[in-house]
């Protein structure tokens, strides 16, 4: 060890661990910072606060896969999950069983239903998708994408929860699950009561 390093040590002692205290203070600040980051919800949720929220849902009607006419208005009185989907969309495939579960849970009570909207896909593809994965809710074709534009949908899957009076109360981007939807419906009911 050279003289220089001896001086080093001496200087270090005389300064009474400045670096240590600086490191500890910085560590606390960074810890708080990490805590803030850890508790943020994702921007997708925030962005899901769409201008439609609290407003009457845009008109939604069209031909269902079985050829009958379907509209959102005709489903007044029920909680409706408007679900934009496509057969090529993998998350849609993943969320499909959850939607089936959701419809089954509400089938008896008849208080909630799902209304699918085809997004950038063809009716035959979607028909095949449903025959393969199951599910029997109405699915509206949206050949020129007007409904998707009205709802401000960027890409499937996106879902909107419409209350029995036709107001949009929630928008979700990405996959949904049955429990989450149930919770939203329960919250909505509580608020309404």
């Amino acid at each position: 060890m050279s003289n220089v390093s001896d001086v080093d040590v001496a200087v270090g002692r005389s300064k009474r661990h400045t670096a240590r205290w600086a490191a500890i203070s910085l560590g606390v600040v960074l810890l708080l910072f990490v805590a803030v980051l850890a508790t943020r919800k994702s921007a997708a949720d925030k962005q899901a606060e769409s201008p439609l929220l609290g407003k009457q849902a845009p008109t939604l009607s069209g031909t269902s896969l079985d050829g009958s006419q379907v509209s959102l208005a005709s489903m007044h009185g029920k909680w409706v999950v408007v679900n934009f989907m496509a057969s090529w969309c993998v998350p849609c495939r993943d969320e499909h069983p959850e939607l089936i579960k959701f419809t089954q849970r509400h089938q008896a009570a008849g208080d909630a239903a799902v209304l699918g909207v085809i997004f950038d896909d063809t009716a035959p593809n979607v028909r095949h998708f449903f025959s393969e994965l199951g599910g029997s809710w109405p699915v509206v074709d949206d050949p020129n994408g007007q409904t998707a534009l009205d709802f401000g949908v960027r890409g499937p899957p996106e879902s909107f929860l419409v209350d029995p009076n036709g107001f949009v109360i929630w928008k979700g981007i990405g996959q949904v699950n049955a429990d989450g939807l149930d919770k939203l419906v329960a919250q909505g009911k509580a608020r309404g009561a």
Partner: protein
Amino acid sequence: MGATLGTAGVWLGLFGAVVGVATLALGLRRRDPRLLEAGRKYTWVILGGAVLAVVAMETALLSHDFSLKYVAENGSRQTPLLFTITGMWSALEGSILLWAIILAGYLAVMVHHFRKRATDPLVGWATLTVFVVAGFFFALMAGPANPFRVIHGTVPTNGPGPNPLLQNHPLVAFHPPMLYLGFVGFTIPFAFAVAALVTGRLGEGWLVETRRWTLFAWGFLTIGIILGAWWSYEVLGWGGYWAWDPVENASFIPWLTATAYLHSVMVQERRGMLRIWNLSLLLATFSLTILGTFLTRSGVLESVHSFTESPIGPWILTFFGLVVFTAVALIGWRGDRLRSPGSIDSPVSREGAFLANNLLFAAFCFVVLLGTVFPLLAEAINGDQLSVGGPYFDRMTTPIVIALLFLMAVAPVLPWRKASEEVLRKRLFWPAATATLVVVLCVATGLRGLAPLAAFWLGTFAAGSAVRQLALSARRQGWRGLVGRANGGMIVHIGVVLIAVAFAASHAYGHQREFRLSPGQSAHLSGHTVTYLGTSTVKASNKTSLRAQVRVDGGKIYAPAVQQFPFATQAIGSPSVKSGLANDVYLTLAAPPDHPGGSAVIGVIVQPLIVWLWIGGAVIAIGTALAAWPGRRRRPTAPVSAPIEVETTGAAGTQPPEPVVVPGA
């Protein structure tokens, strides 16, 4: 098949990293050179795993193996070959794979480079640190960001292809890999900083080694950022190239700390000072790359680049916490032994200038970081949702940039220790005189505005100072006067000046208008004439384009377009740009004609000097390469500086390639 191979690659990499860490840790604990020697060999397992995974992914993309979720979401049969290949980094999981292979590559180069010192504990600790980082990224792929997830049930017959914006321009093939080469490259200096702190060998070796690694990573990051700006300019159609978007900031923040390090490390080499600071900068740079990855990949911030909500956020945040904790703990533990014996003699000296430079870069970093995370902090504190935009960044960073340009002019001519007024006057006269002349000419030709003129003056001043150094150095040493760190650094300075001037000019003197034009009709903007000729529809396998033909200045025809991709609802506007050394004419098809032969709205943006942004980027790349070029090697016993040269010509041209060795504590 692809899934099996790829998953095998990921697990092989993870296995290599875990066993490698264990072996090295044991070797370091027992001080067993055989274990250290054995441990480093797991590098090749990690590299093999990464290569296998990448080959599996590219094969799956190229063979349209839609049984892989990633391929089904990001590939399609219509996508052109280039964008099928780049599909690997068009979404989250694949970009982690890109990260992993680049890290494995760096690791391999590092381990090979230090093969003769493999049993040195410092190298052992550094290798171990990189293994840990690699292990983390492989674990991400084995867990939440698995690129080889398989689709259960029927396999789709086609996919949507990459995001339309990512299959619109060939720069997509270069910008992300360059950026990642930069980002990931900082792992190596970080590892050496950790190793130096752990082993307590703080004074020697690691500094020289990390300097060049940092320089390389810095160079790639710079190129990556500039290519990103270029891509944004050529693809996004708003005529700009930098928007203070969170993702841009995420790449820029570590760039700032790395730039600060590249400067302040010279003070440590010459004067043995700023040791804690330099280590902290390296640790901070790497931490900030991870923070940037978190901010942009977890979906907490909204950005044009952010991938959709992904489950890797908590993982990356935990890793960030771990990295920061390690860094802070190491500095707290060792920091007080690092105190330097010297102090700065005079603020008007090279080291004084470097210190000021570092304070400015730190302030710059803080300002950009604060602006980027402010929406999150504000929301956490009082629940407000707000966004911080361009005006904040422009207002806060302009004074810092101006001060940095001034330092860039003055610092290279300052001698170490202390400068006399006479020396300064003599050395700065010509740069200042040239700068004044340039500004007078600008004013004479009718340019107005305090900010751009100040930028031109400072830019010319700084460039003049750099050219002076290079000229002196070249006169003395011939072509060798252009290589080496100081001279390469001056070339980098010239590149930075070009960018600063182009930035100021394009911001201050740009003009933008939209014209509704019938076929054959012309419009004029800033001395340019654009003539709308009509539209045509062009169908390609992956898109349908509606192209407007627009003749610029009676010459070549440009074709701004609106493109429709089959699986995207929104049409993508594609600008067309006439680039020139003096200015660019940027054309967009703002509104297509509503009936064939009808009138269209053409957006025209004329901005001066844009092309110099990219030229400046190239100059920086060349300068970085020259700076990394090994200078004449001195024997360790050779005198480290030649006092006479330092006194007469300034130290920049005569800096020794080898550092002054300062004994560690």
